[in-house]
């Protein structure tokens, strides 16, 4: 309905969210067969094997880190935070798109989300898991990091609740829990479908256990809908709050470049921006490889591109305001920060940040590019790099030269920094490979609601 009105208003035809000609049966067949019938390709093994090796590299890097200490990284005084925090913020931002798609768009009844929400949620989960590694390992004594949790103890010592790092602990752990529940509950009807259709007895048992006795009765559906909606309601504020709290890590401090009130909205927008970029980077090859163009249509690509364009502009506003206030604010420290970003040793990265996050994505105004998968894939890659640079600029360049000229320093990442970062990318993608292989990457039952047959006739 909404689509029709939109099309009438704009006077042009939008791509459908599901290609015509599908029936309940064909949707179920096509999605479930990817998991159940399709032979595991050599390409999958190569891809999974490669990313699994990167995961092992991550473990190697972490083992050495625990053995020697954070000194194997490039962090120092004054730059006490380096890649670990940059990667943490980057990953957790990426996770946000999944929650936005599954929760907020559900509440807004954006039915086009049905084809991408499942793997976007999976992406969220894996991204948050990748992110969650960093706060733990970046501490000097990771074996004591549990002291950040308010657990009852004989010492009667509690965390220091004024510290944003403690807020982080709550924000991230809540986020991970809700995301996991949301994803799992959404999976239950489809797990039951797989249970019913799989011929391998082992798979049948596993899917059977995971389906938690789903029989598809009306009562089941009723409870499912209620809990799903409730969880969506819980997850919705998290989309806004988690990255707000993450931004407090910076905003609450007094470091020039961190101490700014614009951070919460700018961080949330940036998170969704990078999240959609990651969704596109995953969706485009997946729909190609698994022939899912019918389900993930140009409409999805275009809508995601539009979200990126919108959030990208919010981010651009943030950058402009930061620069403007650096000049207008009258603080000599902020003015120097701006100078240092533009002319300091990391100026190249600041310029690249503008290019990647602001300039390049403007081509998304062109409709043709919004519907060209290859172009979108490239632009999304650029945005992901840009968003990583943004966190690098915020974390490193602000710390590098703050108040006392005598304490100006430099930060050079070491090979261990890179191994840890690339390792988490490997872990994330290895998990995605496993996910597309063993779980339905598109929600079968929700896709079926998009079919014309599903429309209830009065």
């Amino acid at each position, binding site marked *: 309905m909404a689509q029709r009105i939109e099309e009438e208003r704009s006077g042009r035809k939008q791509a459908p969210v599901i290609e015509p000609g599908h029936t309940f049966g064909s949707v179920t067949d096509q999605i479930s067969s990817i998991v159940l019938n399709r032979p595991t390709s050599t390409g999958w093994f190569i891809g999974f094997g490669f990313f699994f090796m990167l995961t092992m590299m991550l473990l190697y890097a972490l083992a050495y880190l625990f053995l020697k*200490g954070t000194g194997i990284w490039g*962090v*120092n005084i004054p730059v006490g935070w380096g890649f670990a925090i940059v990667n943490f913020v980057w990953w957790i931002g990426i996770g946000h798109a999944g929650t936005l798609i599954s929760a907020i768009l559900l509440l807004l009844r954006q039915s086009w989300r049905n084809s991408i929400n499942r793997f976007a949620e999976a992406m969220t989960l894996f991204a948050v898991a990748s992110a969650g590694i960093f706060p733990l390992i970046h501490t000097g004594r990771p074996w004591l990091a549990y002291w950040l949790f308010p657990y009852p103890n004989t010492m009667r*010592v509690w965390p220091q609740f004024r510290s944003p790092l403690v807020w982080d*602990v709550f924000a991230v752990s809540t986020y991970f829990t809700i995301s996991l529940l949301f994803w799992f509950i959404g999976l239950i009807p489809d797990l039951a479908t797989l249970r019913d259709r799989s011929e391998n007895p082992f798979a049948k048992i596993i899917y059977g256990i995971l389906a938690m006795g789903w029989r598809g009765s009306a009562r089941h559906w009723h409870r499912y809908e209620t809990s799903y909606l409730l969880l969506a309601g819980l997850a919705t504020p998290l989309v806004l709050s988690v990255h707000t709290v993450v931004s407090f890590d910076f905003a609450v401090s007094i470091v020039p470049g961190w101490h700014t009130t614009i951070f919460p909205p700018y961080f949330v927008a940036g998170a969704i921006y990078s999240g959609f970029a990651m969704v596109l980077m995953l969706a485009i090859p997946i729909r190609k490889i698994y022939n899912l163009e019918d389900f993930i249509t140009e409409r999805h690509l275009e809508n995601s591109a539009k979200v990126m364009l919108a959030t990208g502009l919010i981010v651009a506003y943030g950058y402009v305001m930061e620069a403007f206030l650096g000049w207008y604010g009258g603080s*000599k420290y902020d003015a120097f920060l701006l100078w240092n970003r533009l002319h300091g040793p990391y100026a190249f990265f600041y310029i690249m940040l503008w290019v990647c996050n602001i300039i390049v994505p403007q081509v998304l105004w062109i409709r043709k590019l919004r519907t060209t998968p290859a172009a979108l894939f490239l632009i999304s890659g650029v945005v992901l790099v840009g968003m990583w640079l943004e966190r690098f600029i915020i974390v490193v360049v602000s710390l590098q030269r703050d108040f006392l000229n005598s304490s100006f*320093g430099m930060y050079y990442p070491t090979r261990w920094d890179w191994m840890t970062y690339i390792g988490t990318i490997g872990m994330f993608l290895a998990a995605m490979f496993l996910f597309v292989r063993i779980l339905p990457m598109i929600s079968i039952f929700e896709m079926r609601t998009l079919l014309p047959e599903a429309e209830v006739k009065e």
Partner: protein
Amino acid sequence: MAEEAKPRRAEDVCPSKKSALDLTTVEAALAQTKGPECWRSLEELSGTPEFQEMMHREFPKGASEWLDGVSRRGFLRLMGASMALAGMTGCTKLPLENIVPYVKQPEEFIPGRPLFYATAMTLSGYASPLLVESHLGRPTKIEGNPEHPVSQGATDIFAQASLLELYDPDRSQTTTYRGDARSWNSFLQATRGMLSVQKGLQGAGLRVLTQTISSPSLNDQMRSLLKLYPQAKWHVYEPVNRDSVNAGAQIAFGQAVETRYNLDKADVILSLDADFLYAGFPGFTRYVRDFSKRRNPDGAINRLYAVESTPTSTGLKADHRLPLRASEVEEFARTLAAEIGGGGGGASAAAANAKFVAAVAADLKAHRSASVVIPGDHQPPAVHALAHAMNQVLGNVGHTVEYTEAVDANPISHGDSIRDLAADMRAGKVDLLVILGGNPAYDAPADLGFADLLMKSGVALRVHLGLYQNETAELCHWHINEAHYLESWGDGRAYDGTVSIAQPMIEPLYDGKTAVELVAILNGQSGTRTHEIVQAYWQKEHPGADFDAFWRRALHDGWIAGTTFAPKAMALKAGGIPAASALGPAGIEINFRRDPSVHDGRFSNNGWLQELPNPLTKITWDNPVMISPAMADRMKLKGEDMVELAVNGAKAVAPVWVQAGHPDNSVTVFLGYGRRRAGRVGTGAGFDMYPLRTAAAPSFAAGVQMRATGETYKLASTQGYQTMETPVGSRPLVRVADLEEYRKDPKFAQEDEPPKDLTLYTPYDYASQTYAWGMTIDLNSCVGCNSCMVACQSENNIAVVGKEQVVKGRHMHWLRIDTYYQGDRANPAAHFQPVPCMHCENAPCEVVCPVGATVHSTEGLNDMVYNRCVGTRYCSNNCPYKVRRFNFLLYQDWETPQYKMMRNPDVTIRSRGVMEKCSYCVQRINENRIDAERADTTIPDGKLQTACQQVCPADAIVFGNINDPNSRVSKLKAQARNYSLLGDLNTRPRTTYLAEVRNPNPELSA
């Protein structure tokens, strides 16, 4: 610095009889069984006596076999066995130790409370009176002797760092013959024959090479040696010596004298290339104290002019500074002397300096008998003679300048002495060479080829006494491990002649010998101990019946009353000043300077000093070549570019450092680096510059060829930017005004700070507490001598991290000195700003710590709870002063036993992953609080001193209770010059600064 523990064989640990049972046999026995049987048979086995014996050994015999070829089954079996046996053995058997309390406790000996003993450290003949803190017989901290007029409680970096030298595990630990360990007796036997031959020859083949000696007892020994062997010769050599000073005195007075300056009486001071405000200058602590006393802008502030060939902290502290090449200083002195009527003439300083000369001359003349001209040690004798003449003409002698007998017991020319020795060696006249300390193979003038002579000239017996197995020890037959001054008896004279007795703080760690003892052997008194010799000497000097009381008094006080040299009236010899020597102005000139940290190389293996930043460049672990900015531009060089220097055919390679204020067309190289055999710390650090230095030109030389090699070399600097300027304006970090500006607006340094209640949290009522600790640092007094940094390192067990970590920005100094340059790069002013923790009342670090590991005390201390710290480093990020230091790796050495003895037992050793920072010496606060509470009173002002305050020769650091309006710190904080660093951030720092006030000559500043 982690010491690689020597691999120890199991037999070493457990030299017990051969056991009948070892792991292999246990394994074999177990291999016969399987399943549950295994456990049963283990039980049976464990009952046997062989098994018991095996379990009592620390390392099973088969331990080494574990490394290879254990099958999975075998491994699991062993694992099972070890699990089962864990309860049977519990722990290993350690040697029996009796822990019993003293039945009769030694007087004043309370475990946990330190004792303080007076002693003295001698550097190049000049003794620094010390008070050494000793915990249960282990010296742990060195302080200046507060009652001694030379020290007044202050010390220099070398004295502070000598503690690390005492415990240095790389120190020579045994007598060696050609590198192999030998007993002391075998040395005695080996020399006996040679000595009797020499006795027959009246010592014609005996040469003794010493360093500068002021010790009366050692001097006495040496004199009797020369009596015993009339043909023997006593040579003296140190690379950084006072030849010019002595030669200058010879010219002026015809004899060696000690020149003593009373800077507290001087209104105008002119330094002719003298670095008298840095450690190593005789009388340093006293001079800095007197100088700083006169830097109070509310009193009669002095004025310092400096003419220098190398920028030094002294010169940069000066109100007016004139950079001149070393050869031009003499010309300047002549012109100035002519101007004020002190002889000289024959030259006229370049017209560019005419204004400077005129202004200085006028100022000096206007302050007759209240001015002083101080010549630098490396300036030629003529400059010294001119300075003597000028001081005479200005009527300073008897007021600001006093002459006394020389402190050096044998004030001969070191350059001539080593040259004579080399000539004798070459001529084959030397049969027995005894080198008492020093390292001539490394630091003798290059053209003498001393190392080669040692090897090849056929000296039949070469004996070296030294703290380290250094380059010279390598080339000597015998090396005797020397006792450290903290381990031995001795005596020495301070710059004013006062004798201090050095008493041992600890039994020699490696049974080291002293020079006194070795000379006694040459004198045929083997078996006499140093203590007896020193005491016997003083008994001879003080024969009365009250010797015992005299001796005890001397040891207790740290000096012998009445030994201070009385001022002597000296008459200037007329017309003694030699004619101007012409050093061609063409070409590049090279200056040879002692390194501000490792001196002439003797402290190379001292990590505290290696990591101590150069006061000007802030570079650690290296000795780059200093060049002027203009020269760098001309030669297209920048910092860290490698250059090759060539003088008279000798070559050396080193990186360049562009030093603001360095005179153009001149380079400065620092000695003491590039050691081949210094120890694990010093070997290989920096670049050896001695090859460029000849006997003819030990201070500076002309005609240097310099070319870039095209390579670069990473230098480890501890300071990011050395200016307060930024492209968007200057930051008011060090606030400075001229005297006139200050008089007009005394509150120039103060700015509006945010109101006290501008915080989200309820402000704590510190005023209601008994104590509120605070500190002021007077930037006007501070001369940037670095003493506080080493004192802090020693007091607070601060780790040395090494060059690689310093490059990464991870040095651990709790207290640093920021040096900021201001003005023209060719001749800038510099400001020194010591930065400890500010102990902010609104501490930004505290609110961001997630675990509450950094918290505020009721007395206003920002405390670190190391145990609680998980190491997020957020506190450091949020600290605007960047005073927090993080243990990125395991920096502390937890293994080396010597270091365990050295550490302050009152301060925690930090492990890796933990943040640390200045604590205002909280251990001292608590110790004093306990004392005060026991006496039911409060800590009196001045009794409690932080380590940095205690060591500061300038008295720039004052710590105390700001709740007491009468405390010194409260009064200083009430001064108009008081300001908070970054006070606009509303951090409310407890450490505040007193702004700098300079006193320029209006004629020159116009």
